[in-house]
C-alpha cells in the first residue's frame, strides 16, 4: 500500500533580488507502507526543502503530495495542523522538545492535543517508553537527560499516535557516534517490529546505512536510488560510492565508525 506519493514536486524560492532559486525540480517518488527510506544529497541539494514539503510546513510551487491517501494541497490552515498532528510523526535535528514538559509529557503531547482518554494515553505512554528504553526517565525534564535520550524522546513522540509516516530531519545531526548508532538501531527496530514507515533526510552515510532504500538527490533533481541487501557494511560502502560520484560529500570522515 502506498503511504506517500510525491509527483513532480517543484519548489522555486523568490529571493528579494531577481534571482530565482529552483530548490526542487520535478521530483517524484513513492513510499510504501513499512518502508524505511533515506534521502541523501550534498548540502544545498534540496533535501530539507523536500522534507518541509512532505511535512506540510511548506507548500510546493507545483506538483502534488498524497500522504495517507490525502492530497495535502487541499488542506487549509487548521486542517493542516490537525493532519500533521494525527497522521505525521516528526523527529528533528534539534529534538524540538518542549522545555516545560517532562520526558513523559513530551512523549504524549500528540495524544493530549488530540484529547484521547487518560487511560489510553497512559497505556500508550508505557508501551512506547518501554520500546525506546525511556521508562526510567519519564519524570525528568529535557535539560536533565542526554542528547541521545532527548532524541529518543522525540522518536517516541513521533510514533505514539501511530502516524502513517514518520519524517526525520537529520535526526543524528546533534548526536555523538554512540548515541547516533543507538538511535538508528531504535529506528530499525521500530521499522521492523512495529512496521512504522520512516522517511529520513540525512547527509550522514552511517545513519543512512540503516535504511532499506536510499534516494539520492542533487540540485533538486532525482539522481539515483539504491536498495540495501543483507549486509549493512556493504550498503554503507555503496552509499559512500554514490556520494563520491555526486560530489560535495562529507564521506571521507565517516569510515572510522565501523
Amino acid at each position: 500500500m502506498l503511504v506517500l506519493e510525491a509527483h513532480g514536486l517543484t519548489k522555486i524560492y523568490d529571493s528579494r533580488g531577481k534571482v530565482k532559486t529552483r530548490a526542487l525540480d520535478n521530483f517524484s517518488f513513492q513510499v510504501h507502507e513499512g518502508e524505511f527510506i533515506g534521502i541523501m544529497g550534498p548540502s544545498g541539494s534540496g533535501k530539507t526543502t523536500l522534507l518541509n514539503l512532505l511535512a506540510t510546513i511548506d507548500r510546493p510551487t507545483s506538483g502534488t503530495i498524497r500522504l495517507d491517501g490525502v492530497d495535502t494541497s487541499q488542506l487549509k490552515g487548521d486542517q493542516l495542523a490537525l493532519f500533521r498532528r494525527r497522521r505525521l510523526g516528526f523527529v528533528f535535528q534539534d529534538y524540538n522538545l518542549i522545555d516545560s514538559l517532562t520526558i513523559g509529557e513530551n512523549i504524549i503531547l500528540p495524544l493530549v492535543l488530540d484529547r484521547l482518554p487518560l487511560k489510553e494515553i497512559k497505556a500508550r505512554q508505557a508501551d512506547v517508553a518501554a520500546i525506546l528504553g525511556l521508562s526510567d526517565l519519564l519524570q525528568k525534564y529535557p535539560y536533565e537527560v542526554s542528547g541521545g535520550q532527548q532524541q529518543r524522546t522525540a522518536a517516541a513522540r513521533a510514533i505514539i499516535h501511530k502516524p502513517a509516516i514518520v519524517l526525520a530531519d537529520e535526526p543524528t545531526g546533534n548526536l555523538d557516534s554512540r548515541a547516533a548508532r543507538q538511535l538508528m538501531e531504535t529506528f530499525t527496530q521500530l521499522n521492523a517490529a512495529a512496521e512504522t514507515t520512516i522517511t529520513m533526510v540525512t547527509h550522514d552515510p552511517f545513519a543512512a546505512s540503516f535504511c532499506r532504500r536510499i534516494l539520492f538527490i542533487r540540485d533538486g533533481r532525482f539522481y539515483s536510488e539504491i536498495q540495501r541487501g543483507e549486509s549493512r557494511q556493504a550498503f554503507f560502502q555503496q552509499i559512500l560510492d554514490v556520494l563520491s560520484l555526486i560530489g560535495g560529500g562529507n564521506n571521507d570522515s565517516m569510515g572510522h565508525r565501523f
Partner: protein
Amino acid sequence: MTLWGIAFKNFWQNRRRYMAYVASAAFSVMIYFLYTALVLHPQLQEGYRGAIEAVQGMKAASVVIAVFTLLFLLYSNSAFFRSRMKEFGMLSLLGVSKRQLIRIILWESLCIGSLAMVIGLALGLLFVKLFFMGVSVLMGLSEQIPFYAGRPVWIQTIAVFGAFFIVVSLASLRTVLSKNIIELVRAAGQPKETPHFSRWKAILGLLLLVVGYGWACAPNPMLVVLGAIPVTFIVSIGTYLLMREGSMAGLDFLHRREWFFYRQAPFLTVSQLIHKIQENYRVLTAVAILVAVILTAIGTIASLFVVYVRDAVKTTPHAIQLVLSEPGELDLAANRITQVLAENNVTDFHYTQMTFFRAEIDGNSRGVTVIPYSLYQSIRAGRNVPVTLSDKNEAVLITMYAFLTEGDTVQREEVLKVGTRQVPLQVHPAINAQPVNADRYLSYFLCVPDALFEELIIQASKESLLYIAIWDVVDWNSKEMWMAVTQLRELYPEYEFTATAENYRSSLLELGMLFFIGFFVSLVFLAACCSLLYFRLFTEIDDNRRYYLQLEKVGVSDRELKKLTWHQSLILFFTPFIAGLIHSTFAMQALGTLLNRTVLQFGWAVALGYLVLYGAFYLVMYAIYWRSLRVTRLAEI
C-alpha cells in the same frame, strides 16, 4: 555601516520592546506636564476659594509622580537592557570597543528620551484644556479655568525629565559595562531548572493573609487604626510568599491531578506557568500590591467624597441658620437676612425661631446643647428618627461622628448639670442626626423630653441661653441662594451663621480636588503596572517564539495557539488584579469600620472602573504581543 547606523538599527530591531518603555515614559511626561500647568497656573496662584490647599496637594502629588516615575524608568530600563545582554555581548565579541558601546547606548538613550519627551509634551499640550475643564467641574467653579501652558511649565517638565533620562541612561550603561563579554553572551539561553517550592512557605503566606484580613475586619475602630501599618506589611509579605510558593503549590497540585492536567489547554498552560514562575512572581507581586494601593487609595477618596458631601447636607440640615446669645439682636438680624434673601429672589422659605441652652454632662467636657425632643422629632420628621424616648429620665446624645476614644456609641448613665440642679439620665447615642446646623460650638446635642426641657430652661442661667433662627429652603443649592449666602457671609462670623450650600460646596471643592489628584496619580501607577507586565511578556518573546514554533511543528493549529496565548496572558494579567482587588476589599472593610458605615460598594465601583481601563490595556497589549509573536511563521521558514 557607521556606528550611528548600528544604533539606529538596534532601535528599529527592538522597536516593539521599546514601545512600552517609550509609551509609559511619554505618559508620565504628559501627566507631569498637566500637573505642572495647573500648579503654576497664575489664576490659581491668586487663589480661588479653597484652591490654595488644592494647589498644595497638587504639588505633593507631582513630587510623588516624579519619584515614582524615576523608579519605574530605572526598573523598566534595566529589565529592557537585561533582555538585550546577548546583543551587546555579540557586539563586543565582534570587536566593538567599550568606548563605542558607550556611545551606542548613550545615543540610543538620547533618542528614546527625546522621543518620549516630544510625545509626552505634545499629548500634554493636547489635553491641557480638557484637564482644566475637568478640574473646573470637580471644584465646582462657576467659570472655567482658562487655558495656560506658559514657559515655566515647559522648562520645569523638560528639566525634570531630562535629568531623569540622563540618570536612566547612566544606569543602563552600568548594567552593560559591569559584565564581561562571556557573561553578556551567556545571559540569555541558559536552560531553566524547574523551580522547587516549600509547602510551609505557602501555608505561611496564606496564614499571613488570613491574619491581615482578620485584623482589617476587626470591629473596633481603634484596632483598625493601630493595624493600618502592620497589616499592610503582613499582607505584602503574604502576597509575596503566595505569588511564588502559593502559586507553585497550586500549579503543582493541578499538575498532579491527572484527570485535569492531561487535557490540551491545562497540559500546555499549567506546565508553561510552572516553567516561568521564577521570572513571573516578582512582577505579579509588585503589580498585585500596586493594584491594591490604587484601588484602596481611590476607593477611600471616593468613599470620603460621597460620605462627606452627603454628610455636609446631613450636618447642616437647614439652608440658613443664625445662632445668637442675645434675644434682642435676633429679630433685627432675622429681618436683615430675610431682606437679603428677598433681594436675591429667594422668597419660598420656612422660618423657625427657637431657644436652647447649654449645659454640661459628666461624660463630655465640651458641654452639650439641650433641645426638646419634640423639636428633634419635628425637624427630623420624615427621616428615620433613631431613638424614641419613653421615660422622663431618658435622653438622646447626638454626635457628629463616632470618635474613637470616647464611648459615644454605647448607651450609658450620665448626669446633666443645669445651674445647681443635677439630673440623672439614661443616655442613648445617636450619630450624625443633627437637629440644627452643627458648627464648632454646636457639635453635641442632648435631646430631652419636652416636660423636662421646660423645667430645665427656667433654671438655666441667662448666659447659657442660645437663640436660633432657621430658614429652610427646598432648593438650597440654587444660584440665587448661593448669591445670598455669599453676601451674608460678609455680615456674620462663622460661629453665628451657617448655610448648607456653603458647607456642601467646600466639601465638594476639597474632596473633588483630592479625587482628581488621586485619580491622576493612580493613572501613573496603573501605567506602571501595565508596562511591568508588558515587559514581562516582551523580555521572553524569543523564548516564546521558539516555543510556539515547536508546538506548531508538532501540529498545534493557529487557533489553538491563539487560545493558548490568550489563556496564559490572561492569567498573567488578571491574577495580580484579582489579588489586589481582594486586598483592597478588606482595606475598604476597615475604612468602613472607621467611618462607621458600609463603603464596600464605593470600593467596588472604583474597582470596576479600573478593571475597564486595565482590561482595555490588556486587549491592546495582547494584540501587539500576538502580532510580534507571529512575526516568524512556520510557513515562512
